[in-house]
């Protein structure tokens, strides 16, 4: 521990700041502009640096770490290509409001703007995809900037912050002081909701006949799952969740309607369509949820609780906005409830819808299907694992069939829909929560997008269950081609070109299995789940060309919901 006031180099200050922020892990990759930091890192013992194999992987790992732990994820990369390789991950964190701080090396101050070797204007490049970013222009600014970066990333609506560190700033010296307080006059998040608005919300909910809670990732981020559980159960309110909201409320609870929106359950979408009061908690009326805005939830009085004032009235105009932290607002709301709504008839109606059109798949023909695999994974882990999915059909099937019991368990790229997210994010999660089971589920397409991170998983002996759902297609794109693009299956068939995934796993030193037999699934899952000291890979060769239902096409209404395939001949 260095003393306050001591004369230190930028590199030393960097690590002192990380110590003050209680950083446990940095996900990074070295290079010229950050060599000085890596020189000092060599002797640092209070945090661990994890060497990824591509900088995009570092950012997704930091996201996975942040989402699983609730702490800020930290990335360190070099200038130029190192920095530009982080861009997709940063955009991903921005869309899903994940608190990360990305430190990028930069060429020396006097070279900035000269097209110097490995120079990229990463502050300019990331401006529209960060919550905020900084170029540190003087070593005296370094500690205050890092302090601000962590504060901004984690507070209010969380998000990514980039801190660009020129080489000369890292080498220069100054007296170290870590500021205790951050005062940003332009940034004062509102945590406490407006009392009168909350009172009014309580009155309206108490009088509702068909109330519905519409829950997003904000509930998980603010740590208000317990408050939500109590509130929903006390007042017998049904709960539907967004993709990011899954886990905020137990999926196995009878009040849970599962996910709403494009691939949401029939009954959740019917409930949204018919409810008379919709209470949105930490969700943002994203277009994958609303479909056509004009026909979305037209009968309801809408209450919208969000910490971000810009989320309100952005996509859907609401009747009662409450700007504040869901945790504070839910606690106050619960206290203000003077009467409980009578929802028994409403819940009975929802159950009728549940029976009218349940989630279903063909389990009679003896062929392996993703839905079955996910159901078995859920069963074998009691819905308690951290499940990190990639993007595509397998992601939607996981959202439908994995009944997350706890928050911070569902890690998936929602807003940006970034293929290649799962494997590196599961690495971050495995570091964040070493005592939990971490399962990575990827498609055969997305798995190949950050496949190099198998090295990181193997080198760190992370007990991740690496599951590949191999349908030999870019399945979700194929589904859209079949439904909306005249069955022109343009560049989505991977069957002839996919690698042998077992050999791939083995080449990375990872024990690997494959199956296409439903009867082998339980045995393989048990085997994989029993391994606690290294990764295991299992490829599930599933039916090609299956489709995810129900589906409300993009920009359409609930009345356009498709519940099964129209052209069965297309099944392979």
């Amino acid at each position, binding site marked *: 521990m260095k003393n306050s006031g001591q004369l230190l180099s930028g590199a030393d200050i960097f690590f002192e700041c990380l110590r003050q922020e209680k950083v446990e892990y940095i996900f990074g990759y070295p290079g010229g502009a950050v060599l000085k930091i890596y020189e000092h890192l060599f002797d640092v013992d209070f945090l661990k640096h994890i060497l990824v194999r591509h900088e995009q992987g570092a950012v997704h790992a930091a996201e996975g770490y942040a989402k699983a732990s609730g702490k800020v994820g930290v990335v360190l990369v070099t200038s130029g290509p190192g920095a530009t390789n982080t861009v997709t991950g940063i955009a991903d964190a921005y869309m899903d409001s994940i608190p990360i701080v990305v430190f990028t090396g930069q060429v020396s101050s006097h070279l900035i703007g000269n097209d110097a070797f490995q120079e990229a204007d990463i502050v300019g490049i990331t401006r*529209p995809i960060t919550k905020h970013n900084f170029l540190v222009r003087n070593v005296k600014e370094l500690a205050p900037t890092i302090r601000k970066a962590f504060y901004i990333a984690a507070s209010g609506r969380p998000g990514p912050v980039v801190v660009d560190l020129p080489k000369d700033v890292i080498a220069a010296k100054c007296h170290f002081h870590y500021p205790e307080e951050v005062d940003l006059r332009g940034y004062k998040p509102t945590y406490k909701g407006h009392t009168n608005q909350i009172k009014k919300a309580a009155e309206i909910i108490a009088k509702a006949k068909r109330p519905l809670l519409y829950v997003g990732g904000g509930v998980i981020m603010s740590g208000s799952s317990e408050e939500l559980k109590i509130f929903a159960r006390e007042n017998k309110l049904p709960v539907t969740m967004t993709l990011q909201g899954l886990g905020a409320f137990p999926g196995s609870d009878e009040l849970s309607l599962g996910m709403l929106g494009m691939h949401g359950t029939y009954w959740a979408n019917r409930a949204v369509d018919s409810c008379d009061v919709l209470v949105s908690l930490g969700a943002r009326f994203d277009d994958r949820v609303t479909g056509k805005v004009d026909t979305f939830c037209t009968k309801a009085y809408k209450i919208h609780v969000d910490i971000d*004032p810009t989320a309100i009235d952005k996509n859907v105009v609401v009747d009662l906005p409450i*700007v504040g932290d869901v945790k504070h607002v839910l606690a106050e709301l619960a206290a203000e409830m003077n009467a409980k709504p009578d929802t028994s008839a409403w819940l009975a109606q929802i159950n009728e819808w549940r029976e009218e059109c349940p989630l279903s798949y063909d389990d009679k023909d003896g062929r392996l299907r993703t839905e079955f695999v996910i159901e078995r994974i859920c069963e074998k882990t009691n819905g308690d694992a951290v499940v990190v999915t990639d993007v595509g059909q397998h992601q939607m099937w996981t959202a439908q069939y994995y009944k997350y019991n706890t928050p911070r368990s569902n890690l998936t790229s929602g807003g940006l829909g970034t293929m290649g997210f799962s494997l590196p994010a599961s690495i971050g999660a495995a570091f964040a929560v070493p005592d939990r089971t971490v399962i990575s589920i990827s498609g055969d397409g997305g798995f190949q997008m950050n496949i190099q991170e198998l090295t990181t998983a193997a080198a760190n002996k992370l007990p991740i269950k690496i599951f590949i759902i191999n349908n030999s297609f870019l399945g979700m794109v194929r589904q859209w081609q079949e439904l909306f693009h005249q069955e022109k299956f343009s560049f989505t068939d991977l069957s002839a070109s996919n690698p042998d995934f077992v050999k791939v796993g083995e080449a990375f030193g990872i024990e690997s299995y494959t199956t296409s037999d439903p009867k082998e699934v339980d045995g393989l899952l048990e085997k994989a789940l029993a391994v606690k000291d290294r990764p295991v890979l299992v490829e599930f060769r599933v039916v090609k060309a299956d489709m995810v239902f129900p589906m409300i096409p993009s920009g359409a209404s609930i009345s356009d919901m498709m519940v099964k395939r129209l052209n069965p001949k297309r099944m392979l």
Partner: protein
Amino acid sequence: MKHTISVLVENHFGSFDRVATMFSGKGFNIRSISVGETEIEEISRMTIVTEGDDQIIDQFVKQLNRLIDTIKVVDLTGSPRVERELALIKVTVPKGAMEEIKNINDIFRGNIVDITNKSMTVEVTGPPDKIDAAINLLSAFGIKEIARSGIVALKRGEQVRIIKEKNLTT
């Protein structure tokens, strides 16, 4: 509809960019933009004229407010305000037209700030429509070049001190 938006912003590296990037990122056209210092050294005022539906501008003002570097953002449209712009208008001087141009300049209470035997530069200050009118009249002689400062604007009435907190409630 035209909107005049006043943005108080930290006067440091990259903060003007952030505001301007927000306009392009959300698909808004900037009709005019002006930046200058305020009574507080480290705070600048940007006055931006843009076009859009009221509801979209409302949402956009919130987005601007959300930026860490912005301290206060107000849409001045609809409130009583003073708007001023400055223009330098360089006109050709056809033979015998000198007097007439000087007359127009006087009517607009302008200044002749540069003169040669072929051209004159007229400086006009005022609300944008006054400047439009001056340009319109002068164009009869042939305009060589125009430079306009973009609008600066303040709300009328008692001064509102720059507040330390953003008004974030809706």
